[in-house]
């Protein structure tokens, strides 16, 4: 069907093809219309509901973390508001990251490298806010707010952070760092496990001390709020509160912050006097197992962790050979030396190896039974003491007496009595990282590929050397059990929990781990021995302290390592003691152990530390401390 137009032959104009085109067009419009009808009218409500669902988001309401108080009600951990710089990776263009982080670092006085590490370490959803620097100054926070246009993805939020205080209420992270611990951000692996418990990706979790062991109580229960969010995942406005947050419980510690201060000062003085790098003092109430002070030196500053410790600072802690991050009172084990004679002595009495009154010969060097002639174990006193009974042997700390006791007990009775007194097992104190310790046993021998321990090993274990290693808290607890008449108590650091209004909601009662299977008479014999250590033994002048009650105790040293050029070995020194705080009472209510790690100066610095602690704590107006130059005067065992 051609069309003639101004004399030119033109294209055919096909009506059929026009109709076809129109039909196709009509078909297309019909399909679009039907589909729209289906989406908007038939399934409209469904899509609308889905749209609402995808537009709302449950925003958690963090609960304030519980506070911590000492037994006198002094606040030791509080929450303070702090400015935190956070980054939402989705809003931070890749090309601008370097510039933005450099500017933030400049304003907050940090390193761009550190910020980038924190940002990269996060690995969550790109819509999550990543805290990259906590505890920035108000000034920096304001400037970042002003520059928000040129700092895409960067926001500043007010987050509470932990502040750790001392007995005076001043920020001082070092006084109680090992007890209180610190919090730190959850990492991605932990988050996978914790997300179901309501943890958030930028949440913190207790990392050490009671912050870790009482995490659940301190954390509280987060609430939830329903928010409308925009396409970027940002919450726009709140619709309703789904669940109110429940603030974390406050902890009431058994510790007394002032006693902690006194114990710390005393230990620090002693360690400085003899150039020792590691030391422990633990004070407990032997009747209840309540820990009153627990000092592990060197300490770390947990306030540094509150704002996120820098990699450099953390490395300094890690590189320190004295391991400041570890609580040496529970996490590390040491040979107890002569203090362990309490265990050997009590076991010998209970097993019938000896009686309280029976005299045993002592030697300069004790020939090991069954060993070739001349293989003998020396007494620290190379002259020997002559015949001794249990009390005198304990008071004078005769090694050869206790070699004999251990050998006659045999490995099984010795081992089971050590375990009876709590050695070789965790005490169950509510602090993370406790060590179990080592006690000589057949099992231990088998782990060394032998049927039994050597007789010499058994003898040495009897005086707390060789195959015996204990934590300071275990040793203190064993003495406390003897002091209180035979109850091995669970050492406790928290007495109770209160709610946000200060109402007591949970009380932790003293717990008896076990009643010792020992007779009152034998326990009394050992207590007399411990008293004799002070009154007629060689504990130097500690007897001159005008203490409110009768002090009993035991010194100990344990040599180890390699001899110096003068032929002396470095040694640990121990002093463990207990006393009643009231005149007239015979029930000891204060037990203390001090341990100092490695000294080459002769003398027992731990004894001097305890003496200093007691005279300060009881305000004795006496100063019987030694001149550090006089340490050689102290009999070293």
């Amino acid at each position, binding site marked *: 069907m051609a069309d003639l137009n101004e004399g030119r032959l033109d294209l055919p104009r096909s009506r059929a093809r026009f109709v076809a085109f129109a039909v196709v067009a009509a078909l297309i*419009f019909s399909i*679009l219309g039907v589909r729209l009808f289906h989406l908007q009218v038939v399934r*409209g409500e469904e899509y609308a509901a889905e749209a609402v669902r995808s537009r709302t988001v449950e925003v958690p309401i963090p609960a304030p973390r519980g506070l911590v108080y000492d037994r006198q009600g002094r606040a030791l951990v509080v929450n303070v508001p702090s400015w935190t710089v956070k980054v939402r990776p989705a809003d931070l263009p890749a090309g601008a990251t370097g510039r933005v982080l450099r500017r933030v670092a400049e304003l907050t006085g940090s390193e761009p490298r550190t910020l980038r590490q924190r940002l990269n370490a996060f690995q969550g959803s790109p819509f999550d806010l990543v805290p990259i620097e906590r505890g920035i100054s108000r000034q920096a926070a304001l400037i970042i707010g002003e520059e928000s246009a040129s700092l895409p993805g960067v926001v500043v939020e007010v987050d509470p952070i932990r502040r750790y205080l001392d007995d005076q209420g001043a920020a001082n992270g070092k006084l109680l760092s090992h007890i209180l611990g610190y919090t730190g951000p959850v990492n991605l692996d932990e988050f996978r496990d914790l997300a179901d418990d309501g943890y958030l990706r930028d949440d913190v979790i207790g990392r050490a001390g009671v912050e870790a062991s009482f995490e659940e109580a301190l954390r509280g229960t987060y609430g939830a709020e329903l928010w409308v969010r925009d396409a970027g995942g940002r919450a726009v406005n709140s619709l309703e509160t789904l669940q109110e947050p429940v603030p974390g419980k406050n902890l009431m510690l058994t510790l007394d912050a002032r006693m902690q201060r006194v114990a710390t000062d005393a230990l620090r003085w002693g360690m400085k006097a003899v150039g020792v790098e590691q030391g422990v003092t633990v004070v407990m109430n032997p009747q209840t197992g309540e820990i009153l002070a627990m000092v592990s030196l060197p300490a770390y500053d947990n306030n540094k962790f509150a704002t996120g410790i820098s990699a450099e600072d953390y490395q300094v802690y890690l590189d320190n050979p004295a391991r400041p991050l570890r609580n040496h009172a529970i996490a590390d084990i040491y040979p107890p030396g002569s203090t362990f004679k309490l265990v050997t002595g009590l076991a010998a009495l209970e097993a019938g190896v000896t009686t309280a009154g029976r005299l045993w010969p002592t030697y300069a060097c004790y020939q090991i039974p069954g060993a070739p002639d001349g293989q003998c174990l020396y007494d620290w006193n190379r002259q020997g003491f002559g015949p001794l009974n249990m009390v005198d042997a304990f008071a004078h700390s005769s090694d050869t007496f206790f070699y004999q006791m251990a050998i006659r007990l045999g490995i099984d009775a010795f081992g089971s009595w050590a375990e009876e007194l709590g050695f070789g097992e965790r005490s169950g104190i509510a602090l993370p990282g406790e060590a179990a310790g080592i006690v000589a046993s057949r099992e231990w021998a088998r782990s060394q590929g032998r049927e039994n321990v050597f007789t010499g090993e058994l003898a040495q274990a009897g005086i707390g050397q060789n195959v015996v290693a204990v934590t300071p808290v275990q040793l203190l607890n064993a003495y406390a059990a003897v002091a209180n008449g035979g109850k091995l108590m669970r050492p406790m650091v928290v007495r109770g929990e209160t709610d946000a209004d200060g109402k007591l909601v949970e009380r932790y009662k003293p717990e008896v781990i076990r009643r010792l299977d020992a007779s009152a008479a034998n326990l009394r014999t050992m207590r007399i021995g411990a008293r004799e250590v002070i009154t007629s033994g060689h504990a130097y002048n500690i007897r001159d302290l005008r203490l409110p009650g009768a002090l009993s105790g035991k010194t100990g040293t344990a040599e180890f390592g390699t001899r110096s050029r003068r032929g002396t070995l470095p040694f640990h020194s121990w002093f463990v003691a207990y006393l009643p705080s009231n005149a007239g009472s015979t029930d000891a209510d204060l037990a203390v152990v001090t341990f100092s790690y490695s000294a080459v100066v002769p003398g027992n610095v731990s004894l001097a530390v305890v003496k200093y602690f007691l005279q300060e704590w009881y305000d004795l107006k006496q100063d019987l401390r030694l001149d550090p130059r006089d340490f050689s005067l102290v009999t070293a065992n």
Partner: protein
Amino acid sequence: MGATTLTATLVDNVRARRWRSFDLQLCLYMVLLIVLGLVMGYSVGYAEAGDAADLSQTVKTLIWATIGLIIFFTAASVDYHWLQTLTMPIYLFVLGLLALTLMIGTNLFGAQLSITVAGLDFQFSEVAKVLMVVVLATFLSGRREKVGKLSTLVGAAVLMAIPTALVFRQPDLGTALVFVAILIGMLFMSGASIGWMGIFTGATVAVAPLLVQTLENYQRQRLFCFLDPGADPQGACYQLIQSLNAVGSGGLFGQGLTAGRQNQLGFLPVQSTDFIFTVVAEELGFIGSILVLVIFGLLIWRILAIGWGARDALGMMMAVGLASMLLFQIMVNVGMVIGIMPVTGIPLPFITYGGSSLISLMFGMGILQSVRMHARKPTF
């Protein structure tokens, strides 16, 4: 002086007679769609700027529309046969501009889609679409009795292949597909052999998977979302899912202008461009969106009528070329928004924000007016 007056009077007379056949319907539909685009653009700007609605985009669109109107009337008043004369320069102009865009184009979402002159973004591929209709119309109308031959098909395909390849390289899959749609529509309407077209279409379908392989990963993922939106709800298909939610939320009557929650909360990424129909559907509901489709349908109907009534094949081909282009863009854009077409970057004619698209389309509408005013009936 006198001669000039005489000429002016003559011209006026001629024009006055011709302007009487000015297609008011076409003009009305065009203006309605542009106004709708302005209103929807305002609603989107309202979302982005919060309470103080951002007028700058609306103002820009108004400026573009004004320029477009001048071009529209200019094109309407000029005899469209001039375009035939200028076909070769136009074709070279198109190729040159597309090559230029490829070389110095501004980077937008990873693709070189436009170049910036004096602060204004020019998407030459939009202009190229209308100009290629002109080029093809000239070529096909010139084939006359040879139109049914294979050579016509090959010639048209080769003419179209070069600009198509250039936009595909940008990469602008959407415009490349529009070029192909224009080619097929115009060939069909020119009277080309259905058999050969079938073979060519079959061959194209056969090589399509190979072309898909050359696409960027993000384009490929987006392309196939409509088959299963749940496949990657947070990633490539996020837009589509949010779009479906928005369209569904519109219901029968819509949520009202500037009241679409999906739109106002920014759940429709780049909503002012390709997903504008989502906002129409959410805020104006089923009634509103059907109304918009009806206006589009009437517009295409008018264009076909103008084509049917054109004086010669050139005018007819221009009309069906523009109709093909509009129909294809509407089908793919609206289809994409409602989840029955793959997600490609094809704008909705007149409504999607974009100056170059708008003035190109208005230029095209101007040509149609010229075709209408030089149609058979008034002339004879």
